């Protein structure tokens, strides 16, 4: 049946059709929907793991047990999972193991723009790179064949435009592979030095075998072009932009497997054209490979290794003409993302700013606490870095920083990799105060359950990790809970915990305002008679409040009635 599917949904369909049985992932834009869509198939077991390392190790375990398994993450998640990744490369698999990783060129929702293809080469694992949803489905299935044929985990690399574009796919039936059993094999699965020394040459031989496969693989195809003055090697979205810009004008070598790459096929293609160009997003990965083959090639001297490509960009850089529509002679103000009206994070950031604290931030919706007018965050690095960084900042900074610095981290991020930092705070005794922003959901990626919510990926009730108990258990004696809507209580808690000469945790607890079960009191009405236009309510950066003719006005379609602005109004106008 022909249907429109997101690239991520198509990967999920491919997993289903390939007879995948076990999926463990951690959400991360733009990879999240692969696992969410896969969870809708009853035949598949799918779960959210606490982080990507756990997810990959769980998927490996499932493969070991004889079941085809899968694990998805965003590009930075692969950094977290890199430890098992590099050694799973040595052990190989039992049943097929496929790892989905989604890059975010253009950083639509990420803290860096790393190119995951380097991981394929570094870990010596094959990587497939689909360019639309139909390929996403087909490559997910092919990945299992390769995984079992070559005894290797296989990476499927997505990117924002492939993950989040819908295109036409034709679905097939689910076919369960022949069942495998676990059999003891210490030489293959116990990676201590003696065994690993035997396995490393196996890995190198595997790469040679995969390179040979790549020479004739249908997914590395040459598309003929009438004008051989230029030949283009490309993959992923780059391929789509090239075809959009030039149609069948120039010959194209479209690589579906980005690692290992064929050698003879590339050399033959180069010999068939006058000038060779590589069109690829981010780093010059294919280009470097071409150069290593001694081929004269252009790539990054034409196209930047920063940001996304597009059809106009490809056309322009390769000598075509593009035209744009009319621009207004007007300065159009930007519209950056903002915290939602009623967001429980807003008020705590207001208090942190008011108290002039240094705030080490983390990854989640609350990163928006860095944006004016709140501007309350000092750092954002990676998952968990707020808690671990706080310890170093306080320990090394001594009196300079103790009592004046906090870490803020969301519930899901805390479980992901904040808890190990908190153990360090307890164990090495820094007078650190960590604020866990517990909004009872993984927010930024679009409301995924996590170990603190009491529900699993399928929405069934399950064990709920008790944050207070967890903090106590790792050695934090001072643990207290505040309601972030109550700013006075937040300030009191902060003053007391910052004054304490020992580690402490403040759990700022209120569910995300967008959760369906959250009942709101309803919009607040601004009294223009009482409003003096002092703009105190504007200092929280609520999108529902604006000043019209010098008076505060509340947008009733946005306001949920959280009442935080009311606490700031000295004139009883809200």
């Amino acid at each position, binding site marked *: 049946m022909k249907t429109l599917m997101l690239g991520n949904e198509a990967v999920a369909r491919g997993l289903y059709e390939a007879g995948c049985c076990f999926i463990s992932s951690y959400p991360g834009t733009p990879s999240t929907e692969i696992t969410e869509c896969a969870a809708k198939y009853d035949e598949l077991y799918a779960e959210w793991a606490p982080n990507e390392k756990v997810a990959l190790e769980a998927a490996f375990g499932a493969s070991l047990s004889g079941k085809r398994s899968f694990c998805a993450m965003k590009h930075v998640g692969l950094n977290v999972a890199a430890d098992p990744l590099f050694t799973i490369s040595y052990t190989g698999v039992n049943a097929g193991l496929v790892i989905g990783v989604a890059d975010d060129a253009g950083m639509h929702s990420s803290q860096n723009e790393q190119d995951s293809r380097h991981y394929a080469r570094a870990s010596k694992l094959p990587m497939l790179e689909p360019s639309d949803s139909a390929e996403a489905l087909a490559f997910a299935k092919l990945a299992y064949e390769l995984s079992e044929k070559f005894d290797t985990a296989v990476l499927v690399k997505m990117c924002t435009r492939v993950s989040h*574009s*819908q295109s036409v796919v034709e679905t097939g039936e689910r076919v369960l592979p022949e069942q495998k059993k676990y059999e003891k094999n210490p030489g293959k699965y116990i990676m201590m030095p003696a065994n690993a020394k035997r396995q490393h040459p196996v890995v190198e031989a595997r790469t040679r075998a995969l390179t040979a496969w790549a020479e004739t693989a249908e997914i590395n195809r040459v598309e003929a072009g009438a004008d051989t003055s230029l030949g283009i090697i490309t993959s992923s979205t780059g391929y789509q932009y090239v075809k959009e810009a030039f149609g069948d004008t120039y010959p194209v070598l479209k690589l579906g497997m980005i690692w290992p790459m064929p050698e003879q096929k590339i050399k033959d293609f180069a010999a068939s054209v006058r000038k060779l160009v590589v069109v690829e997003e981010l780093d010059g990965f294919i280009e470097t490979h071409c150069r290593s083959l001694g081929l004269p090639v252009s790539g990054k001297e034409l196209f930047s290794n920063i940001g996304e490509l597009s059809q106009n960009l490809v056309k322009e850089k390769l000598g075509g003409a593009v035209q744009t*529509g009319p621009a207004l002679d007007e300065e*159009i103000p930007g*519209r950056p*993302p903002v915290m939602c009206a009623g967001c429980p994070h807003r008020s705590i950031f207001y208090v942190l700013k008011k108290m002039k604290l240094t705030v080490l931030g983390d990854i989640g919706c609350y990163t928006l606490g860095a944006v004016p007018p709140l501007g309350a965050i000092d750092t954002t690095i990676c998952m968990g870095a707020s808690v671990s960084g706080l310890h170093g900042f306080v320990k090394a900074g001594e009196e300079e920083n103790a009592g004046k610095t906090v870490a803020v981290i969301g519930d899901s991020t805390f479980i992901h990799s904040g808890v190990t930092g908190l153990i360090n705070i307890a164990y090495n005794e820094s007078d650190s105060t960590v604020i866990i922003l517990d909004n009872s959901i993984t927010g*930024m990626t679009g409301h995924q359950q996590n170990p603190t919510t009491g529900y699993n990926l399928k929405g069934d009730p399950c064990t709920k990790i008790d944050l207070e108990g967890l903090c106590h258990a790792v050695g934090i004696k001072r643990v207290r809970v505040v309601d972030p809507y109550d700013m006075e209580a937040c300030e009191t808690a902060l003053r007391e915990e910052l004054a304490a000469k020992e580690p402490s945790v403040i759990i700022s607890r209120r569910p995300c305002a967008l959760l369906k079960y959250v009942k709101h009191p309803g919009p607040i009405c601004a009294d223009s008679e009482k409003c003096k236009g002092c703009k105190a309510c504007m200092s929280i950066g609520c999108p529902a409040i*604006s*000043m019209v003719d010098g008076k505060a006005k509340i947008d009733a379609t946005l306001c949920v009635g959280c009442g935080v602005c009311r606490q700031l109004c000295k004139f009883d106008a809200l």
Partner: protein
Amino acid sequence: METKNIMIVGVGGQGTLLASKLLGRLLLGRGYDVKVSEVHGMSQRGGSVVTYVRWGTKVCSPIIDKGQADCILSFELLEAARYTEYLKPDGRIIVNSQQINPMPVIAGTASYPDNLVQKMEEKGIHVDALDALTLAEEAGSSRAVNLVLMGRLSTHFDFTEDEWMNAIEGSVPPKFLELNKKAFVSGRK
């Protein structure tokens, strides 16, 4: 057939994704090759959001570039003005005249430009502006702005009302079907 391009732009949370889902379903039903590109995650939080809808005999790129849009369907006035460069020379803008202040305007560091419809028309752009919020409220909910705008967009296509209604039925929950159909019809006028 030459590829047709519609950009759906608006403010995160306004329901632009439903509009593209509906359009995609309709176009696929007509047997076209279709690509619909969305952006999820961080930019959805009240930020400027863009969805690209492309269809034709064979569609390659998932995105629409500058100078390529046959039509921009904008859920908010400022967002229409932001993307005029994406229009083809004879391109059209259908815009909800509702204004939603972005944070720089709320924070007082920028001002919301005035007379935007007029300024766009002065550039030779065909602008079809309507108060979709009021029409949506009259149909029963301010959330139905997307269906009002789809209704207006539908007047520029040769699809029958039945085809549109089938696509709506396939894209919205049964509970909200009547409301959405009503909003759609009000936009068609």
